[in-house]
């Protein structure tokens, strides 16, 4: 395996620094929200994690299309890496949202349109990983993965627009939401700065993790190739 590129080490350092700053802003720069109290601070990383989730699923769909067009296995490796990272971050977003909901909605979970569609997305992509495990032939597995990532992505915009189209208690950060939403708040300037900085930090973190995960995927593909040749 080739040695770690210098730019990847630089990106690791930048990501670490950005993450420390974002964490500092969440806890010490952003003010405490008047109605919800300190639990509102979960919102910054909750939304950023959900953003990374959706970003990765979108990347997987795009590279899935490229794979079908070019038939180059490296795009399958990128797609798998993007889905795996997004699954983890979407899980974080769902659980963080549930923790926020307990004191605000007085329940850990409710079958609200946003929560329901987010759970469906998580299960769709968990199934993607499980089904891939069941396919031995690498080319067939890559083709299946590409088509699945393209079709599975249809569920992502459905989650994004669910709180804008349907009756929901989930607050909307950008754009108008349901008037019945519980837990909405107006962001002050430090809150907006913390929010957008967290989004930026998580985007950089996604790029960094994707690079590491793709390198790991290439290594796994090399080993699989050697094993298949040995058989």
């Amino acid at each position, binding site marked *: *395996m080739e040695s770690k590129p210098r730019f990847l080490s630089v990106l690791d350092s930048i990501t670490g620094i950005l993450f420390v700053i974002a964490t500092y802003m969440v806890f010490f720069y952003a003010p405490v929200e008047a109605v919800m109290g*300190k*639990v509102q601070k979960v919102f910054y990383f909750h939304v950023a994690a959900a953003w990374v989730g959706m970003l990765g699923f979108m990347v997987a769909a795009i590279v899935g299309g490229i794979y079908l067009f070019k038939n180059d296995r490296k795009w399958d490796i990128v797609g798998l890496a993007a889905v795996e990272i997004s699954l983890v971050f979407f899980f*974080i977003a769902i659980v963080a949202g549930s923790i926020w909901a307990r004191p605000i909605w007085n329940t850990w979970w409710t079958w609200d349109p946003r929560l329901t569609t987010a759970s469906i997305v998580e299960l769709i992509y968990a199934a993607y990983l499980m089904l891939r495990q069941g396919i031995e032939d690498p080319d067939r597995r890559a083709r299946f993965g590409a088509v699945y990532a393209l079709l599975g992505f249809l569920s992502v915009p459905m989650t994004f627009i669910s709180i804008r189209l349907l009756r929901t208690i989930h607050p909307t950060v950008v754009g108008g939401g349901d008037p019945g939403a519980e837990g909405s708040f107006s962001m002050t300037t430090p809150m907006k700065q913390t929010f957008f900085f967290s989004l930026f930090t998580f985007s950089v973190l996604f790029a960094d*993790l994707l690079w590491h995960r793709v390198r790991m995927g290439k*290594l796994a593909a*090399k*080993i699989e190739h050697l094993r298949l040749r*040995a058989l």
Partner: protein
Amino acid sequence: MFFLQSPPDTSAYMIAGYVMIFGVMAIYITSIFTRTRNLKRDLEILSEVEDQQ
């Protein structure tokens, strides 16, 4: 003045949320490095076996 209230104490939920967020991220990052290390080891073994044959 009498009607002004301080925010409710929801610190425990904030702490729980961030412990979960940092915990899951730490586990995932560790898993990437552990799996990569194991794959490198596997590759070395496979290369040795191939050289011997």
